[in-house]
């Protein structure tokens, strides 16, 4: 674990990569996919382990990597072999093209394409079917996203260790925000402190830059993710939601602090409600449970459903399920998935308390990966 902590951006170990490849090809077999075309950076990371340049925001779907079941090869869009694992050979790399005809020519050279019958893609765009028809003329284009999620969602022990290592980096982000939090400070300064701490830990990219919110003490209370430069006032409840990546795996958690004052009784009551609610949801995180069971567990506490996802999957970034007031109710929790459970409880005149914990859904019940941080409100500044 110590070695991991100092090397968060390295290409991951061979055993981890091999385990992920095995799961990917097994899912392709289960879904009868001859070929799987992946586009998202997290999918490329899962399939190949290659380190890629990090950019913010969703990327347009394109063939960033191609897994071929007949040959067992995974082909990668990469101009160079820098930080590309050894099992992806130089022959398995294809270059960056702006001209779609050149891209199609490069892809068509991949052995096993021409004879593929069923080609899965993780997403699609208008015209993508024509590209597939050009490179795999006899193939049927099908939904490959379920196969990808089935492969990705249940975590190996090593993957859980990486999530735990990312939580440790997020702890540095929390500490930096707590140190910067005082009356007169701004949410933007807290964001800067978080990003700076991640970079200083050698892991500069964040799951989101929306990490700090000073909640309103008068009028409606909302959880904002876009920060402002209004000075934080003494006594305000401030949500801190740090996150980080370790070798592509996300870790993080949310806690709430009081700026420059001891927590008041109404604030302590609000925090207790938030803590009771999240504990109830966490207790429902068991293999076979449905999203609806998590929602029901929340509702039994008497808290209104908040406009914040109650649960999201966590692994190589955000993953399904997404469970909120209307979505994800039929999603079945698989064993060894990791969920981020969020609890947002607010009250006009007091503010809001956000808690977020990461939970491993294990056969013997939920294991909270972020348990060493108390839910209790604490004063900072």
């Amino acid at each position, binding site marked *: 674990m110590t070695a991991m902590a100092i*090397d968060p*951006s390295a290409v991951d170990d061979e055993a981890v990569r091999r385990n992920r490849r095995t799961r990917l090809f097994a899912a392709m077999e289960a879904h009868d996919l001859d070929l799987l075309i992946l586009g998202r*950076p*997290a999918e490329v990371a899962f399939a190949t382990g290659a380190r*890629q*340049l*990090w*950019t*913010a*925001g*969703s*990327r*347009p*779907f394109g063939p960033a990597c191609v897994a071929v079941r007949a040959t067992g090869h995974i082909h990668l869009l*990469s*101009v*160079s*072999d*820098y930080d590309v694992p050894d099992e992806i050979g*130089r022959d398995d790399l*294809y*270059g*960056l093209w*702006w*001209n779609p005809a*050149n891209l199609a020519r490069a892809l068509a050279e991949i052995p096993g394409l021409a004879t593929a019958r069923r080609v899965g*893609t993780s*997403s*699609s*765009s*208008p*015209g993508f079917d024509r590209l597939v028809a050009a490179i795999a003329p006899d193939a049927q284009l099908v*939904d490959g996203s379920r196969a990808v999620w089935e492969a990705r969602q249940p975590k190996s022990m090593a993957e859980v260790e990486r999530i735990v290592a990312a939580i440790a980096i997020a702890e540095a982000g929390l500490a930096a925000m707590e140190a910067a939090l005082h009356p007169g400070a701004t949410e*933007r300064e807290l964001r800067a402190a978080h*990003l*700076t701490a991640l*970079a*200083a830990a*050698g892991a*500069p*990219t*964040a*799951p*989101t*830059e*929306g990490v700090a919110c000073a909640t309103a003490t008068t009028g409606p209370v*909302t959880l*904002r*993710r*876009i920060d402002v430069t209004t000075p934080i006032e003494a006594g305000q409840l401030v949500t801190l939601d740090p996150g980080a990546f370790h070798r592509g795996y996300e870790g993080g958690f949310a806690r709430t602090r009081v700026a420059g004052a001891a927590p008041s009784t109404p604030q302590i009551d609000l925090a207790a409600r938030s803590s009771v609610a999240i504990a109830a949801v966490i207790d429902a995180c068991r293999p076979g449970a449905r999203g609806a069971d998590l929602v029901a567990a929340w509702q039994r506490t008497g808290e209104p459903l908040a*406009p914040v*996802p109650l649960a*999201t999957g966590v692994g*190589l*970034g*955000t*993953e399904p399920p*997404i469970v909120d007031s*209307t*979505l994800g109710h039929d999603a079945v929790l698989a064993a060894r998935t990791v969920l981020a459970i969020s609890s947002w409880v607010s009250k006009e005149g007091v503010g809001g308390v956000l808690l977020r914990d990461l939970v491993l859904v294990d056969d013997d019940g939920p294991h909270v990966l972020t348990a060493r941080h108390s839910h209790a409100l604490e004063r900072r500044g």
Partner: protein
Amino acid sequence: MTVNGREVPAVADLARMRAERHAKLQEQLVARGLDGLVLLGTSAVAYATGAEAPGCDSSRAALLRTVAIVVTGASHPHLFTPYPEGAPPELPADHVHPGAVPDLDDGAAQLAEHVRQLLGPTARIGIDEVPHPLARALTGLELKPASAVLGVAKLHKTVDELACIRQAQHITEQAMLEVQPLLRRPGITQTDLTACFVHHIVGLGAEYVGIDPIWQVMPRTKAAGPWTVHGDLAFPTPSGPQPLHEGDVIWVDTGVHIGGYASDFGRTWIVGPDPTPTPRQQRQFERWLAVFHASLAACRPGVSTLEVARAAIAADERADGANEAKPWIEHFYLAHSVGTDSAEMPMIGTDLGDDFDAAQVLAPGMVLVFEPVIWDDGAAGYRSEDIVAITDDGTMTLSDHPYDPFVAA
């Protein structure tokens, strides 16, 4: 200097910018006979709605998405967002919806219901990405690439868009003035530089960091660098906690966003207490300047981008007198534009080829980020990026940063 008869303001009028972009999209929707747009990509939604969102990892941005629905003939777009506080103030409340999750079945069904209500059950729509669940949910609608509409609208910037790009570039340059002195301390790591950069850039008002900063140590020779598919340079490579050493030649590249618009900063730096370039390095820089200035001199409305590329090639006289090589990286370009995407059209010198470049004609409002590369095998090379906009009678610069430690003769 004017762009389509208007001065570029010191500060962008964001409401006017959004209104003018909406009008351009509407014009293209009518021209293409489309009933509307459904946009899922972060940069496309930012363009169509002006909505702000926190910078997110691609995995989060592709599941907890912002989504735009633009209805042909309507005065405002519809925005689906997990971040309602980022909705533009003029957007009517009934046009701001909770976030959509079109990549999962139930979320796709919900969004498809909105699409049918707003655009009709058999509408002909432009769309940028179609996750499989959404494809199933949109059965009966005719799906066309949104790029035909977005591409034309985004090609020419309004004066407010130019002001946003200039502002994003300005703060990036301000932050980089704080970072560069750190290179005088060999042993500092790439991610230490990033820490300094993000600390300053957020304080200067960046909405988010678009590209994890690149501080690539360039090898002396191509052969000493990573293997590449085409034999040209490996660039860019991601940063990590690797220490930098005295004499290292660093190629810097990053971008941040303001008003939705990206900056694009590129410079070559040298590590060490005395970063003075060698005469050979200085010659690389002078070649780079010659290419950049020749490119710039060729830029004005009505000129094809092939003419600009040819001017760049002709200006690069190598030490051996030959000048037939393209002074840019094989898999990239001499220049690209920047907008809500960090690289967008027009691009000059790509594998789209000479015919493409010849057909692409410069016009007022186009933006070009020039990034020539001078490679001098044995002594690494020089790369910088500078941004210009095409005006009514020439160009105006949107970047303004010293080339330190290189100095123009």
